[in-house]
Protein backbone atom coordinates (compact mmCIF):
# COMPACT_ATOMS: atom_id res chain seq x y z
CA UNK A 1 0.00 0.00 0.00
CA UNK A 2 2.95 2.33 -0.48
CA UNK A 3 2.07 3.66 -3.89
CA UNK A 4 -0.90 5.81 -4.83
CA UNK A 5 -2.06 3.37 -7.49
CA UNK A 6 -1.08 -0.16 -8.46
CA UNK A 7 -1.70 -2.33 -11.47
CA UNK A 8 -4.66 -4.05 -9.81
CA UNK A 9 -6.30 -0.62 -9.33
CA UNK A 10 -6.05 0.01 -13.05
CA UNK A 11 -7.59 -3.40 -13.72
CA UNK A 12 -10.50 -2.68 -11.36
CA UNK A 13 -11.00 0.77 -12.85
CA UNK A 14 -11.01 -0.52 -16.42
CA UNK A 15 -13.31 -3.40 -15.49
CA UNK A 16 -15.79 -0.98 -13.90
CA UNK A 17 -15.63 1.31 -16.94
CA UNK A 18 -16.22 -1.61 -19.31
CA UNK A 19 -19.18 -2.91 -17.27
CA UNK A 20 -20.73 0.57 -17.25
CA UNK A 21 -20.08 0.95 -20.98
CA UNK A 22 -21.72 -2.36 -21.88
CA UNK A 23 -24.67 -1.63 -19.58
CA UNK A 24 -25.17 1.83 -21.08
CA UNK A 25 -25.11 0.40 -24.58
CA UNK A 26 -27.68 -2.23 -23.64
CA UNK A 27 -29.90 0.27 -21.88
CA UNK A 28 -29.97 2.86 -24.64
CA UNK A 29 -30.42 0.26 -27.37
CA UNK A 30 -33.08 -1.88 -25.70
CA UNK A 31 -34.71 0.98 -23.84
CA UNK A 32 -36.43 2.13 -27.01
CA UNK A 33 -37.65 -1.34 -27.97
CA UNK A 34 -40.38 -1.63 -25.35
CA UNK A 35 -43.66 -1.90 -27.18
CA UNK A 36 -46.57 0.42 -26.39
CA UNK A 37 -50.30 0.24 -26.86
CA UNK A 38 -51.53 3.46 -28.42
CA UNK A 39 -55.25 4.14 -28.35
CA UNK A 40 -56.98 6.89 -30.32
CA UNK A 41 -60.60 7.65 -29.53
CA UNK A 42 -62.72 10.65 -30.41
CA UNK A 43 -59.75 13.00 -30.76
CA UNK A 44 -57.98 11.89 -27.59
CA UNK A 45 -55.02 9.59 -27.22
CA UNK A 46 -53.79 7.13 -24.57
CA UNK A 47 -50.52 5.23 -24.23
CA UNK A 48 -49.87 2.12 -22.11
CA UNK A 49 -46.98 -0.33 -21.91
CA UNK A 50 -47.80 -3.72 -23.44
CA UNK A 51 -46.02 -5.60 -20.68
CA UNK A 52 -48.20 -4.28 -17.83
CA UNK A 53 -51.62 -5.83 -17.38
CA UNK A 54 -54.42 -3.28 -17.43
CA UNK A 55 -58.16 -3.02 -17.95
CA UNK A 56 -59.21 0.23 -19.64
CA UNK A 57 -62.54 1.82 -20.48
CA UNK A 58 -62.06 4.14 -23.43
CA UNK A 59 -64.85 6.69 -23.96
CA UNK A 60 -66.25 6.98 -27.48
CA UNK A 61 -69.45 8.52 -28.90
CA UNK A 62 -71.52 5.37 -28.17
CA UNK A 63 -70.11 4.68 -24.70
CA UNK A 64 -67.07 2.94 -23.22
CA UNK A 65 -65.03 0.42 -25.18
CA UNK A 66 -63.29 -2.03 -22.89
CA UNK A 67 -59.62 -2.66 -23.74
CA UNK A 68 -57.68 -5.35 -21.88
CA UNK A 69 -53.89 -5.61 -21.85
CA UNK A 70 -52.90 -9.05 -20.59
CA UNK A 71 -49.58 -10.93 -20.72
CA UNK A 72 -48.34 -8.94 -23.71
CA UNK A 73 -51.60 -9.34 -25.67
CA UNK A 74 -54.27 -6.71 -26.27
CA UNK A 75 -57.92 -7.41 -27.00
CA UNK A 76 -61.33 -5.77 -26.80
CA UNK A 77 -63.72 -7.99 -24.80
CA UNK A 78 -66.67 -5.64 -25.19
CA UNK A 79 -67.71 -2.48 -27.00
CA UNK A 80 -71.04 -0.65 -27.33
CA UNK A 81 -71.17 -1.17 -31.09
CA UNK A 82 -73.61 -3.39 -33.03
CA UNK A 83 -71.31 -5.37 -35.34
CA UNK A 84 -68.68 -6.31 -32.68
CA UNK A 85 -65.97 -6.58 -35.35
CA UNK A 86 -63.48 -5.28 -32.83
CA UNK A 87 -64.38 -8.03 -30.36
CA UNK A 88 -64.06 -10.73 -33.00
CA UNK A 89 -60.64 -9.45 -34.06
CA UNK A 90 -59.27 -11.25 -31.01
CA UNK A 91 -55.83 -10.74 -29.52
CA UNK A 92 -53.02 -8.70 -31.03
CA UNK A 93 -49.44 -8.75 -29.77
CA UNK A 94 -46.92 -7.66 -32.43
CA UNK A 95 -45.75 -4.20 -33.38
CA UNK A 96 -47.91 -2.87 -36.22
CA UNK A 97 -51.00 -4.93 -35.40
CA UNK A 98 -54.22 -3.07 -34.67
CA UNK A 99 -57.87 -3.37 -33.68
CA UNK A 100 -60.45 -0.85 -34.73
CA UNK A 101 -64.00 -0.17 -33.58
CA UNK A 102 -65.34 2.17 -36.25
CA UNK A 103 -68.80 2.78 -34.74
CA UNK A 104 -67.32 3.93 -31.42
CA UNK A 105 -64.31 5.66 -33.06
CA UNK A 106 -61.72 3.64 -31.07
CA UNK A 107 -58.43 2.66 -32.70
CA UNK A 108 -55.98 0.44 -30.80
CA UNK A 109 -52.51 -0.35 -32.13
CA UNK A 110 -49.19 -1.73 -30.91
CA UNK A 111 -46.06 0.20 -31.73
CA UNK A 112 -42.42 0.48 -30.73
CA UNK A 113 -41.54 3.15 -28.19
CA UNK A 114 -40.01 5.38 -30.88
CA UNK A 115 -42.75 7.42 -32.58
CA UNK A 116 -40.69 7.83 -35.77
CA UNK A 117 -40.94 4.12 -36.60
CA UNK A 118 -43.20 5.16 -39.42
CA UNK A 119 -45.50 2.19 -39.92
CA UNK A 120 -48.29 3.92 -38.03
CA UNK A 121 -48.79 6.56 -40.70
CA UNK A 122 -49.01 3.92 -43.39
CA UNK A 123 -52.14 2.36 -41.97
CA UNK A 124 -55.07 3.12 -44.25
CA UNK A 125 -58.39 3.84 -42.64
Amino acid at each position, binding site marked *: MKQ*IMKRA*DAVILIAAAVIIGVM*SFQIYRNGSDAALVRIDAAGRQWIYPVDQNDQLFIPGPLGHTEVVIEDGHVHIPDSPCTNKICVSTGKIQRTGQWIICLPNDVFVRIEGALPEDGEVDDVAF
Partner: protein
Amino acid sequence: MSLSSSGRAVRIHEIAMLGAFALFLATVEYVIPKPVPFMRIGLANLPVMIGLTFLTTREYALLAFLKVFGQGIIHGTLFSYVFLFSLGGSAASVVMMLIAYRLAGRHVTFVGIAVIGAFASNMAQLFLARVFLFGEGAWLIAPPFLITGLITAVVLGLFTQQFVLSSRWLAAKQEGVRRD
Protein backbone atom coordinates in the same frame (compact mmCIF):
# COMPACT_ATOMS: atom_id res chain seq x y z
CA MET B 1 -6.31 -10.92 18.83
CA SER B 2 -7.54 -10.39 22.37
CA LEU B 3 -8.16 -7.01 23.86
CA SER B 4 -8.04 -6.14 27.52
CA SER B 5 -11.22 -4.54 28.85
CA SER B 6 -9.61 -1.08 28.85
CA GLY B 7 -8.36 -1.74 25.33
CA ARG B 8 -11.89 -2.63 24.31
CA ALA B 9 -13.22 0.64 25.78
CA VAL B 10 -10.60 2.54 23.80
CA ARG B 11 -11.61 0.68 20.68
CA ILE B 12 -15.28 1.55 21.23
CA HIS B 13 -14.25 5.20 21.36
CA GLU B 14 -12.27 4.85 18.15
CA ILE B 15 -15.25 3.30 16.38
CA ALA B 16 -17.56 6.06 17.68
CA MET B 17 -15.04 8.66 16.56
CA LEU B 18 -14.76 7.28 13.04
CA GLY B 19 -18.57 7.05 12.97
CA ALA B 20 -18.78 10.70 14.06
CA PHE B 21 -16.24 11.61 11.39
CA ALA B 22 -18.47 9.92 8.79
CA LEU B 23 -21.46 11.93 10.06
CA PHE B 24 -19.45 15.13 9.89
CA LEU B 25 -18.38 14.43 6.30
CA ALA B 26 -21.96 13.52 5.38
CA THR B 27 -23.03 16.90 6.75
CA VAL B 28 -20.29 18.60 4.73
CA GLU B 29 -21.43 16.76 1.61
CA TYR B 30 -25.03 17.81 2.30
CA VAL B 31 -23.96 21.46 2.13
CA ILE B 32 -21.70 21.25 -0.94
CA PRO B 33 -23.61 22.41 -4.03
CA LYS B 34 -23.78 19.70 -6.70
CA PRO B 35 -24.31 20.12 -10.45
CA VAL B 36 -26.73 17.19 -10.61
CA PRO B 37 -29.33 16.36 -7.99
CA PHE B 38 -28.86 12.88 -6.52
CA MET B 39 -25.15 13.07 -7.29
CA ARG B 40 -23.13 11.87 -4.36
CA ILE B 41 -19.45 12.14 -3.60
CA GLY B 42 -19.56 9.62 -0.80
CA LEU B 43 -17.23 11.55 1.50
CA ALA B 44 -18.58 9.59 4.46
CA ASN B 45 -16.83 6.53 3.07
CA LEU B 46 -13.42 7.96 3.96
CA PRO B 47 -13.63 6.91 7.65
CA VAL B 48 -15.12 3.58 6.62
CA MET B 49 -12.12 2.87 4.42
CA ILE B 50 -9.74 4.07 7.13
CA GLY B 51 -11.47 1.62 9.47
CA LEU B 52 -10.58 -1.23 7.14
CA THR B 53 -6.91 -0.85 8.04
CA PHE B 54 -7.16 -1.57 11.77
CA LEU B 55 -10.63 -2.81 12.78
CA THR B 56 -11.77 -6.40 13.11
CA THR B 57 -14.72 -7.53 11.00
CA ARG B 58 -17.09 -7.14 13.95
CA GLU B 59 -15.83 -3.65 14.75
CA TYR B 60 -16.03 -2.74 11.09
CA ALA B 61 -19.68 -3.84 11.04
CA LEU B 62 -20.33 -1.62 14.08
CA LEU B 63 -18.77 1.32 12.26
CA ALA B 64 -21.00 0.68 9.25
CA PHE B 65 -24.01 0.55 11.57
CA LEU B 66 -23.03 3.92 13.11
CA LYS B 67 -22.56 5.50 9.71
CA VAL B 68 -25.98 4.46 8.43
CA PHE B 69 -28.05 4.98 11.60
CA GLY B 70 -26.25 8.14 12.66
CA GLN B 71 -26.97 9.69 9.28
CA GLY B 72 -30.58 8.59 9.45
CA ILE B 73 -30.96 10.30 12.83
CA ILE B 74 -29.02 13.49 12.05
CA HIS B 75 -30.76 14.07 8.73
CA GLY B 76 -34.07 12.83 10.10
CA THR B 77 -34.57 10.27 7.36
CA LEU B 78 -34.46 7.20 9.60
CA PHE B 79 -38.11 6.34 9.03
CA SER B 80 -38.39 7.27 5.38
CA TYR B 81 -37.25 5.17 2.49
CA VAL B 82 -34.31 7.50 1.98
CA PHE B 83 -32.95 5.39 4.80
CA LEU B 84 -33.44 2.25 2.74
CA PHE B 85 -31.28 3.78 0.02
CA SER B 86 -28.60 4.62 2.53
CA LEU B 87 -28.79 1.20 4.16
CA GLY B 88 -28.84 -0.73 0.89
CA GLY B 89 -26.00 1.26 -0.67
CA SER B 90 -23.84 1.16 2.45
CA ALA B 91 -24.41 -2.53 3.10
CA ALA B 92 -23.44 -3.44 -0.45
CA SER B 93 -20.33 -1.25 -0.49
CA VAL B 94 -19.17 -2.15 3.02
CA VAL B 95 -19.35 -5.89 2.31
CA MET B 96 -17.64 -5.58 -1.08
CA MET B 97 -14.88 -3.31 0.24
CA LEU B 98 -14.22 -5.66 3.16
CA ILE B 99 -13.97 -8.67 0.84
CA ALA B 100 -11.73 -6.79 -1.60
CA TYR B 101 -9.46 -5.51 1.17
CA ARG B 102 -9.13 -8.88 2.90
CA LEU B 103 -8.56 -10.79 -0.34
CA ALA B 104 -6.42 -8.38 -2.31
CA GLY B 105 -5.29 -5.72 0.16
CA ARG B 106 -1.65 -6.25 -0.76
CA HIS B 107 -2.16 -5.78 -4.46
CA VAL B 108 -4.65 -2.97 -4.49
CA THR B 109 -4.74 0.59 -3.11
CA PHE B 110 -7.77 2.51 -1.87
CA VAL B 111 -8.44 3.72 -5.40
CA GLY B 112 -9.46 0.19 -6.34
CA ILE B 113 -11.27 -0.37 -3.05
CA ALA B 114 -13.25 2.87 -3.48
CA VAL B 115 -14.22 2.01 -7.05
CA ILE B 116 -15.50 -1.42 -5.96
CA GLY B 117 -17.41 0.12 -3.05
CA ALA B 118 -18.96 2.86 -5.15
CA PHE B 119 -19.98 0.44 -7.87
CA ALA B 120 -21.66 -1.91 -5.38
CA SER B 121 -23.40 0.98 -3.62
CA ASN B 122 -24.64 2.57 -6.83
CA MET B 123 -26.00 -0.67 -8.25
CA ALA B 124 -27.89 -1.34 -5.01
CA GLN B 125 -29.28 2.19 -5.01
CA LEU B 126 -30.34 2.01 -8.65
CA PHE B 127 -32.24 -1.15 -7.88
CA LEU B 128 -34.00 0.55 -4.96
CA ALA B 129 -34.65 3.68 -7.02
CA ARG B 130 -36.35 1.56 -9.65
CA VAL B 131 -38.68 0.13 -7.03
CA PHE B 132 -39.45 3.29 -5.06
CA LEU B 133 -38.89 6.39 -7.16
CA PHE B 134 -38.32 6.13 -10.86
CA GLY B 135 -39.94 2.95 -12.17
CA GLU B 136 -38.43 1.53 -15.36
CA GLY B 137 -37.00 4.96 -16.13
CA ALA B 138 -34.35 4.28 -13.48
CA TRP B 139 -32.28 2.38 -16.03
CA LEU B 140 -32.15 5.43 -18.27
CA ILE B 141 -30.45 7.47 -15.54
CA ALA B 142 -28.13 4.56 -14.66
CA PRO B 143 -25.25 5.44 -17.04
CA PRO B 144 -24.71 9.07 -15.90
CA PHE B 145 -25.23 8.01 -12.28
CA LEU B 146 -22.67 5.21 -12.52
CA ILE B 147 -20.14 7.31 -14.45
CA THR B 148 -20.19 10.23 -11.98
CA GLY B 149 -19.98 7.65 -9.19
CA LEU B 150 -16.88 6.15 -10.78
CA ILE B 151 -15.16 9.53 -11.09
CA THR B 152 -15.92 10.62 -7.51
CA ALA B 153 -14.78 7.20 -6.26
CA VAL B 154 -11.39 7.62 -7.93
CA VAL B 155 -10.97 11.07 -6.37
CA LEU B 156 -12.05 9.83 -2.94
CA GLY B 157 -9.79 6.78 -3.29
CA LEU B 158 -6.78 8.92 -4.13
CA PHE B 159 -7.47 11.09 -1.11
CA THR B 160 -7.94 8.08 1.18
CA GLN B 161 -4.72 6.52 -0.03
CA GLN B 162 -2.92 9.80 0.65
CA PHE B 163 -4.42 9.94 4.13
CA VAL B 164 -3.59 6.32 4.97
CA LEU B 165 0.02 6.84 3.86
CA SER B 166 0.63 10.05 5.78
CA SER B 167 -1.65 10.04 8.85
CA ARG B 168 0.23 9.79 12.16
CA TRP B 169 -3.04 9.16 14.00
CA LEU B 170 -3.74 6.09 11.90
CA ALA B 171 -0.13 4.94 12.29
CA ALA B 172 -0.59 5.10 16.08
CA LYS B 173 -3.81 3.04 15.81
CA GLN B 174 -2.16 0.38 13.67
CA GLU B 175 0.78 0.30 16.07
CA GLY B 176 -1.72 -0.24 18.91
CA VAL B 177 -3.31 -3.16 17.10
CA ARG B 178 0.06 -4.79 16.56
CA ARG B 179 0.90 -4.43 20.27
CA ASP B 180 -2.36 -6.08 21.28
